[in-house]
């Protein structure tokens, strides 16, 4: 499998290099769908220029990335394109290895259940075979590298690519079972944008199952593991924050980075729901709705954990999707990360209900974003409502996609316990509903 993967990497790097050389690179770097006030490369350069002028990059309101990024690019600014292509390659390879490992575990678990005869007789069609699972890791890497969203994000040099790399390394180390590295990578991801904090729970659930610690709040071993993981996670977060303090010598970066993500002062249009909502908000209710929207990202964690405690990898996928849709400054790079996981759940295709509609809407919206932006900003013949409408549609499509996969996953789990062909009391074919 190394050969097709390397071929894929070569093709991906070629496409990115070709686009970087062309005149499209500057156009793409300015698009609001691809870069946000946090992730834009122009702002990283501005931060470095302010540092050269002797002014703190956080004294103004133009630079909102973390001090470690300044430190990194202080040395790498001349090799920026290579850095971002390398980040994409690392993400793809990490996802490849992680999914390969995960598939092995799924297949092993399935084999044990088959031998223990836990499945009803008629759902043998739902059992997965190694032949079908063989190409999934390659498809995951391909979905990530050849996704137009990822390519645009890499050519625009959006720091979202670095965040994706750290998140995929976190997924890899979690699936491999390495507790310390998982905590460290999660800490780096949280340090850059606060939202990966919610991935703590699926990581803990997965690692507990990996180490055969019973997932039972009444057992002491459960809490002991939680304390260990949280200690490693919060400890590395503390160390990283203090390191940032020593890099620039002040705590200015805390309100500029984290205060900015949480309080959303900048209303630059993007593909998310926050900008127009807060542009049209009555001042009196601003704080209330800000809290509501931010809590909305975090509060799906506990219910999802309770429902999906036996499938922590699907839980991680759901959490990544929720973060990408509801975060304060989303970009297409965030969408690309959770879309890369879709090949892992190809066996659910027979239970998906809206996939055709959703994919059509996603394609149409992606095409309409630049058109309506041009009409609003350059031609002046449309107004902001047009772009906002497409934003709404895009987010509805993403939500429907994620909930559709969730439905299909839960339905397959139900069939694996209750049987595939269900009959009503009188023997005729039954329909399955959620009640």
């Amino acid at each position, binding site marked *: 499998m190394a050969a097709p993967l390397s071929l894929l990497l070569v093709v991906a790097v070629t496409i990115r290099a070709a686009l970087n050389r062309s005149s499209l690179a500057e156009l793409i770097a*300015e698009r*609001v769908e691809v870069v946000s006030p946090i992730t834009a490369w*122009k702002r990283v*350069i*501005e931060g*470095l*220029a*302010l540092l050269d*002028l002797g*002014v703190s990059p956080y*004294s*103004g*309101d*133009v630079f909102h990335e973390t001090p470690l990024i300044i430190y990194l690019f202080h040395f790498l600014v001349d090799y920026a394109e290579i850095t971002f292509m390398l980040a994409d390659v690392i993400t793809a390879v990490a996802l490849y290895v992680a999914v390969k490992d995960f598939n092995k575990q799924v297949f092993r678990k399935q084999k044990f259940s088959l031998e223990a005869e836990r499945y009803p007789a008629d759902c043998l069609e739902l059992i997965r075979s190694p032949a079908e699972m063989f190409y999934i890791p390659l498809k995951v890497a391909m979905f990530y590298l050849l996704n137009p969203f990822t390519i645009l994000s890499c050519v625009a040099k959006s720091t979202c690519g670095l965040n994706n790399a750290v998140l995929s390394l976190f997924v890899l180390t979690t699936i491999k079972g390495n507790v310390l590295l998982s905590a460290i990578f999660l800490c780096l991801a949280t340090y850059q944008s606060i939202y990966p904090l919610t991935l703590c729970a699926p990581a803990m659930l997965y690692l507990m199952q990996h180490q055969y610690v019973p997932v039972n709040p009444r057992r002491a071993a459960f809490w002991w593991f939680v304390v260990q993981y949280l200690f490693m996670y919060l400890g590395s977060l503390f160390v990283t924050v203090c390191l940032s303090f020593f890099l620039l010598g002040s705590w200015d970066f805390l309100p500029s980075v984290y205060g900015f993500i949480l309080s959303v002062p*900048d*209303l*630059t*249009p993007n593909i998310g*729901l926050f*900008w*127009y*909502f807060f542009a*049209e*908000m*009555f*001042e009196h209710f601003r704080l209330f*709705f800000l809290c509501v*929207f931010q809590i*909305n990202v975090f509060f*799906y964690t506990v*219910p*999802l954990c309770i*429902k999906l405690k036996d499938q922590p990898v699907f839980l991680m996928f759901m959490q990544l999707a929720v973060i990408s849709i*509801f975060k304060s400054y989303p970009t297409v790079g965030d969408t690309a990360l959770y879309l890369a996981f879709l090949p892992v759940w190809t066996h659910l295709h027979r239970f998906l209900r809206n996939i055709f509609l959703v994919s059509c809407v996603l394609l149409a919206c992606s095409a309409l974003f630049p058109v309506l932006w041009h009409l*609003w*900003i*350059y031609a*002046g013949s449309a107004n*902001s*409502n047009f772009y*906002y409408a497409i934003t*709404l549609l895009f*987010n*509805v499509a993403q*939500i*429907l996609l994620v*909930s559709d996969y*969730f*439905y299909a996953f839960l*339905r397959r789990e*139900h069939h694996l316990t*209750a049987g595939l062909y*269900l009959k*009503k009391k009188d023997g005729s074919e*039954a*329909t*399955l*509903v*959620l*009640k």
Partner: protein
Amino acid sequence: PPIAYEFQEELVIRPLHSGDIYASFQFRTVWETDFTRGISHYRLFPKSLGQVISKFSVRELHISFTQGYWRTMQWGQPYLPSPPGAELWVWFQDTVTDVDATWKELTNVLSGIFCASLNFIDSTNTVQPSASFKPLGIANGTDHRFLRYATLPREIVCTENLTPWKKLLPCGSKAGLAVLLKSEKLFHSSFHSQAVHIRPVCQDEPCKTASLELRQTLNVVFDLHASGQGKREWSLFKMFSRTLTEACPLASSSKIYIDVTDNPQDQFELSPATHLLSQAVVLGDRRTFSVYDLTQQVTFGTVRSLNVLIRWKSTEGDMLRPLLHAERYVAGYGLQTGEIHTLMYNNHPFRSFPVLLLDSVPWYLRLYVHTLTVTSKGKDNKPSYIHYQPSKDRMRPHLLEMLVQLPPHSVTEVTVQFERALLKWTEYTPDPNHGFYVGSSVVSALVPSTVAMNTNITKEQPLFSTFFPTKEESSYFIRVYTEPLLVNLPTPDFSMPYNVICLTCTVVAVGYGSLYNLLTRSFQVEEPNPGLAKRIANVIRKMRGVPPL
């Protein structure tokens, strides 16, 4: 010995090359006083301004209201430059503990005194320049923490501002040169600027005590076609619809200067003729003036009124090309990004000189200082001093100050890119599609002079040549203001707040609803629901006690 009170008034009339005429009034009150000991007795100095100075511990105050833009290339350099709109800059005493709070109170009080909307000056348009605005009077130290500068480019000047300004004069508008200040003529002009400048000065060389100087200046340019009916003949009556009958009794000197330097071949003639001539070095050039002394009764002649008439016989002659000139414009298209271009022209044939450029850009135009380029004659020209203070959203504007060396006979172009922000819907003005104003850039320079400047402060000089202090003989100080910019920002739809809240909350609810359903419900086999008729029939059957269908 220093005089306790002195009031001087003068009017300078300069015919401009394009046929327009430039009139500059200056009213100067000098008061020897020590503010630290408290004041109880005002004579010539206006009480409202005296109270402002003592209450807010003001060392220097400069405020100007201007309607129109000074066209340097057509009219030459003004005696007292001012940017369009309102401009206020103040040096506070170093005894002030909270400069920002004092500044806020001061702007509100001045807003009341001058009937102007200076209360719009707040932290989002106030800056602290580090080099461009040095004290114009005597100063012990220049700690820039005590300096504040703000402009309101959108401010409109009208009769309501002129009336309180005239009230500050010792003679009011009843005697002396101030009788000429009639608003229906003054505002029917190409350029109108009224200003108040307060600063501490020395009256003589030993300078044991500081005196407070109040200068009220009014500059106006009358257009040849709008006010002059196309005929190149100007008189006091044509310009101001009044003539002069007496000097202000409180004035120690009251003079009219007519600039006759551009009249070597007698292109124009003055009447009534005067034999008083005066020469002065102003703006680096030696100029000759015909003088009318209003304190002498003979000036008014037998009719007891003075109407100075200038009549042209031919229209030849060149204009002296101004040495420093600046322009500014916005480049780019669309509502996302743009570029500010500032052009500075050095018209001196062989000398180069440094200029200080001060740019204050509002926070909603996000400047990218890494895109700042300064080019002269096509080559890169690196500034030797850059002071940049980035903006903070909704709190303070950008401040960019640079020291640029302008090569001789060249154009220097400063470009910087910016991004336009989307504001909250309540932050737009009622006419959002008019655009947002960016205040004028200030270009301050010491320009080399062809004629030796006079550095002696005690010698009797006309007022118009003593405003900017000259420290050396070979150069003089000028300040050039560029045009203000008008920039459009993208606007949200103002009719939509309720709709937007509903629609966005609906999308969030779609997410919440789908996930809630999937999390709280489980799959069950559905038992078919009997139709409505059957259900009603079952209810009736139950009541009858018969088994259901």
